[in-house]
């Protein structure tokens, strides 16, 4: 492994964020604040506590996950889509670097951004509701692992997409619905039994549940199931990426 190329990609990606700071950091913070105002303060005050947690506090982990997933996917997908779109990907493909180095550079940068963003949202949430984090190390572990996994997914989407529309498609049609339906804003106990069963097929549920457990020590599914699910996701993404690079799918004619 040569660290210069990884560093070059990583730093270039982060400097892209700096150029688009407003879009990258400020807009998710604003939209999260809006969620808190609407769900936490306005509606939440009329909802009773869930598992002994005030509704405003209950949605914090779900909201962070929502932002983490969508931002990881969109950052990482754009990061690799843009060079493909502009043609400058030729340099990446002709450089003496391994696939692993490319992925670490791009995905590392996207995941870094997401983690920072997650922490900013967490701090923002602190303005609206009193926060307690029961297992801070687990919280960080979930944050980082989820950011990496969904940045990998974003990277795959960026390679697969051959137009800006497709780039938007997956976050919009897959990630956001799964997150909303995965218990960001409710506990699945609140659903009728049939829908509880259906929800168990939603992988995002396991991420949110585990993440919420790290805050409040309560969860919809077991911690082991959450950890297994995120590792499974990670493994699938890594396998897909190695296939992409082996075959040159959508990268090399």
């Amino acid at each position, binding site marked *: 492994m040569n660290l210069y190329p990884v560093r070059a990609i990583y730093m270039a990606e982060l400097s892209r964020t700096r150029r688009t700071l407003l879009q990258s950091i400020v807009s998710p913070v604003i939209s999260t604040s809006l969620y808190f105002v609407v769900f936490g303060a306005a509606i939440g005050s009329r909802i009773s506590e869930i598992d002994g947690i005030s509704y405003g506090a209950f949605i914090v982990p779900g909201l962070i996950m929502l932002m983490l997933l969508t931002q990881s996917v969109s950052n990482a997908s754009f990061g690799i889509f843009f060079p493909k779109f502009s*043609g400058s990907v030729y340099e990446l493909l002709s450089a003496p670097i391994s696939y692993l180095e490319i992925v670490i550079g791009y995905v590392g940068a996207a995941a870094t951004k997401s983690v920072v963003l997650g922490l900013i949202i967490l701090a923002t949430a602190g303005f609206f509701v009193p926060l307690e984090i029961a297992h801070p190390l687990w919280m960080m572990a979930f944050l980082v692992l989820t950011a990496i996994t969904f940045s990998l997914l974003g990277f795959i989407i960026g390679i697969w997409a051959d137009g800006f529309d497709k780039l938007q498609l997956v976050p919009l049609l897959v990630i956001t619905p799964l997150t909303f339906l995965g218990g960001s804003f409710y506990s699945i106990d609140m659903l009728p039994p049939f829908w509880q069963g259906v929800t168990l097929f939603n992988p995002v549920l396991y991420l949110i549940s585990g993440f919420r457990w790290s805050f409040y020590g309560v969860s919809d599914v077991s911690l082991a199931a959450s950890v297994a699910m995120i590792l499974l996701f990670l493994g699938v993404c890594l396998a897909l990426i190695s296939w992409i690079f082996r075959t040159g799918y959508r990268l*090399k004619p």
Partner: protein
Amino acid sequence: MSEPIIRVSALNKTYEGGFQALKQIDLDIQRGEIFALLGPNGAGKTTLISVICGLVNATDGQVVVDGFDNQVDYREARSRIGLVPQELTNEAFETVWNTVNFSRGLFGKPPDPGHIERVLKSLTLWDKRNNRLITLSGGMKRRVLIAKALSHEPRILFLDEPTAGVDVGLRREMWDVVRQLRESGVTIILTTHYIEEAEEMADRIGVINNGEIVLVEDKAALMRKLGSKQLALHLHEPLDSVPPALAAYDLQLAANGSELIYTYDASRAGGAEGQESSTISALLADVEAAGLVFKDLHTRQSSLEDIFVDLVKER
């Protein structure tokens, strides 16, 4: 001759959809030469370069760069190669300085601001180093791409139509840069549509057409082999036919009989025996003896362009 720095053997490329862009290409590039790849639009020049540089997967065949297979030992092979693509591609919002340093890092080299400075200065980009790429002209952007390719000190430089869209003065400057690079030991492979560029720059010339290499030759030998020269005499009075007294010379009449054309082999003119030059003296003497008066004369040597057009037409 020493081991070639690039050896392409039995290379085929069929694109998805079934179009065969390269057919059984065998090509050796010698260490330290300037090799010009000529061919009409769609001949396969860019495809060939792309396969060598690892941008396009070959269907079959092998590429060896400085002894390293470009698939198996891709790190070794690619680290020796700098590529300037045909299309202008840029991260529009980066600065010149950042993008060139990025390229160096990408190729695994530690930062070396001194080297980047020299590269930018040699390409007259130094004053623009803090400009964002989007604010540069087309010719400047192309030079940025060259700077990016040179940032990591390649031993081999591919220039895919380097001077397209570059004005005449700058083109000369770029040729100088290329020559300096060659002097420092860099092997250069360029494609171009400007035949004058190949004629001026190249040591050897390859012609590719319809995905096949139709000719690879020393430039000088090529010009000698295929180059013929014409002497045209502009006559005062037009002729109906070549006078019998000059029948021995294989002359043609042109321009309604007002030009007398003598075609000869340029390689033998001024040769050791000087046969052709003595023939020309004799011809001129006989023309005068035949009572023909000419007001002007000029000679014309077929350029590489003529040779090239002939070659591609033939196939």
